[in-house]
C-alpha cells in the first residue's frame, strides 16, 4: 500500500502553488495525484460543469495519448467509469471483453505500450468530478492493496480539487479535512442532503463544501458536525456560517 499521509502532505503543498491561481493549483494537485497512482503512468481528467473534459495532468506521453484517444473516440474505460460510477479495471486489453466493449480504442492503442487500463471515477455522491486513469505496459491485475490505495488516493485527490474550486482553502493544515480516503460515516452524507434543502436548494458539492467549511472554522470533526445537523441541534443559514 502506498503512503496516504505522504500523499496528503504533497497534495496540500501543491494546493498552494501559483499564489492561489486556481488553474495552476489544479494542475499541480492533479500531477501529484497522478504520480501516486499505481501503474506505469497515470492521468487525471476533470469534468467541468458544462460537461467539458480537461486533462489536468498526465505523467507521460503514453497516458496522454490514451486520454486523447478515449475522449476523441468517445469510448473507453474512463467514460464507462464516469457513466457507471464504478471503477473499470481491465487487466488485459488484448483479450475478451475490452475488444468487444471498445473495439476502436483497442485498435488505436495497439501501437502503444499499453496492456492494462484502470479507471477510477472521481465522485462526490451523485456528482461526477472526473476520472483518474492509470495504465500498465504489461498485462496483469492490480492487487488488493493497490486497488485499495488507488480508491482512497482518488477520493483524497477529489476532495483536494473541490477544495481549490470552492476557494475557501485556509492557510492552515487541512490534512484532517481530507480524511483517510474512505467514504466515512453515513451521517455526513445525510447531513449533506439536509443542507442542500436548508441552504435553499444548493448542489451536493456546495452543501458538502459548506459542511467542511463550517467544520474547519469551528475546529470540530466532520462526523460531529454531521451528527448535530442530522439531530437538528445545528442549523446552518443560507448566507453565512453562523448557527441559529
Amino acid at each position: 500500500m502506498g503512503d496516504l499521509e505522504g500523499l496528503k502532505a504533497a497534495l496540500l503543498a501543491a494546493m498552494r502553488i501559483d499564489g492561489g491561481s486556481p488553474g495552476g493549483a489544479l494542475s499541480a494537485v492533479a500531477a501529484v495525484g497522478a504520480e501516486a497512482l499505481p501503474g506505469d503512468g497515470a492521468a487525471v481528467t476533470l469534468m467541468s460543469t458544462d460537461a467539458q473534459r480537461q486533462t489536468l495532468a498526465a505523467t507521460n506521453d503514453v497516458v496522454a495519448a490514451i486520454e486523447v484517444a478515449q475522449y476523441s473516440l468517445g469510448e473507453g474505460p474512463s467514460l464507462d467509469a464516469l457513466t457507471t460510477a464504478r471503477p473499470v479495471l481491465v487487466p488485459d486489453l488484448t483479450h475478451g471483453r475490452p475488444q468487444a466493449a471498445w473495439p476502436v480504442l483497442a485498435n488505436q492503442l495497439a501501437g502503444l505500450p499499453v496492456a492494462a487500463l484502470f479507471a477510477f471515477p472521481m465522485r462526490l455522491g451523485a456528482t461526477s468530478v472526473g476520472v483518474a486513469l492509470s495504465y500498465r505496459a504489461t498485462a496483469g491485475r492490480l492487487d488488493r492493496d493497490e486497488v485499495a490505495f488507488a480508491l482512497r488516493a482518488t477520493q483524497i485527490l477529489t476532495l483536494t480539487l473541490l477544495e481549490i474550486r470552492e476557494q475557501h482553502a485556509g492557510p492552515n493544515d487541512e490534512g484532517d479535512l481530507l480524511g483517510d480516503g474512505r467514504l466515512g460515516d453515513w451521517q455526513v452524507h445525510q447531513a449533506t442532503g439536509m443542507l442542500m434543502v436548508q441552504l435553499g436548494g444548493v448542489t451536493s458539492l456546495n452543501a458538502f463544501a459548506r459542511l467542511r467549511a463550517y467544520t474547519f472554522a469551528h475546529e470540530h470533526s466532520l462526523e460531529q458536525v454531521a451528527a448535530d445537523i442530522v439531530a437538528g441541534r445545528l442549523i446552518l443559514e443560507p448566507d453565512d456560517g453562523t448557527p441559529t
Partner: protein
Amino acid sequence: MTAAGREQRLVRAFVGLSDTLVSDYDVADLLQDLVEHCVHLLRADAAGILLADPRGGLQVMASSSEHTRLVELFQQQANEGPCVDCVNSGEPVSVTDITDHTGRWPRFVPAAAEQGFKAVDALPLRLRAEVIGAMNLFRTHSGAMPEADLHVAQGLADVATIGILSERAVDRRSVLVAQLEGALSSRVVIEQAKGILAASGATDMDHAFTALRTHARNTGTRLAEVATDLTNGQLSPATVLATSSARAAIQQD
C-alpha cells in the same frame, strides 16, 4: 402466516433475488430486499449487512430499519463482533445468549443488549474462497435460531452473493471491486437523498428511507436512481413524500 403462505413468500424471495442474475439491477436494492426478506420470513427481529469495502474495512450496506442506533450497532461490528469474526473465518457465527460473550466482544455486547437484543447470528456472504461480507440477524429472545430458518437465511444470502459476484464473469476480482464500489457509491447518494427528504418533510431518517423505498417500488425504479433524481433536482421531495403518505393512508384503511 400459514405454512403454504410462507412457502409461497419464500419462493418469491428466492426468485426475486435470483432475478439479479439475468436483469439489470443494483446491489443496494438487492441487499435491501435480502434484509427485508429475513425479518419478514424468518425469526429475526432485525437484520443488517456489512460488505468488505475495497478501500479496507467493513461498511454497513443495508439495515432492516434505518434507526441511527441500529445502524450504529451494525457499523460497530466493522471492528468487533459476530460479523467481523464471520468475515474473517468465512464461517457462520451463532450466539444464543450474547451475555455469555462479554469477554469476547466487550463493546459489542453491551451495545446490543442496550437495544434489547439477546441472540445474534452472522452468516457469511461467500462464494467458494471469496468472502465479500456478512449478514447479521438479531433476535430479542435468547436461544438458537431454528435450523430451518438458518438454512433459508444462508440460501438467500448465497443467491444474493452469486448475483453480486456474477458467476459468468471472466475476471471476478475486477467485477467484485466494481460491484462493491458501485454499491458504496449508491449508498452515498441514498444517504444524501434521505437527508433531502428528512429536511423537506421534517421527518427522521427512518421515515425518509421508507418514503424513498415506497416511491422506488411504486414506480418500478431502483433506489439509487430515485436518490440520484432527488439530488439532481429532477424529482421534487414533495412528490416522493406524497406518494409514500398516500400509500400509508391506504394501508391504514
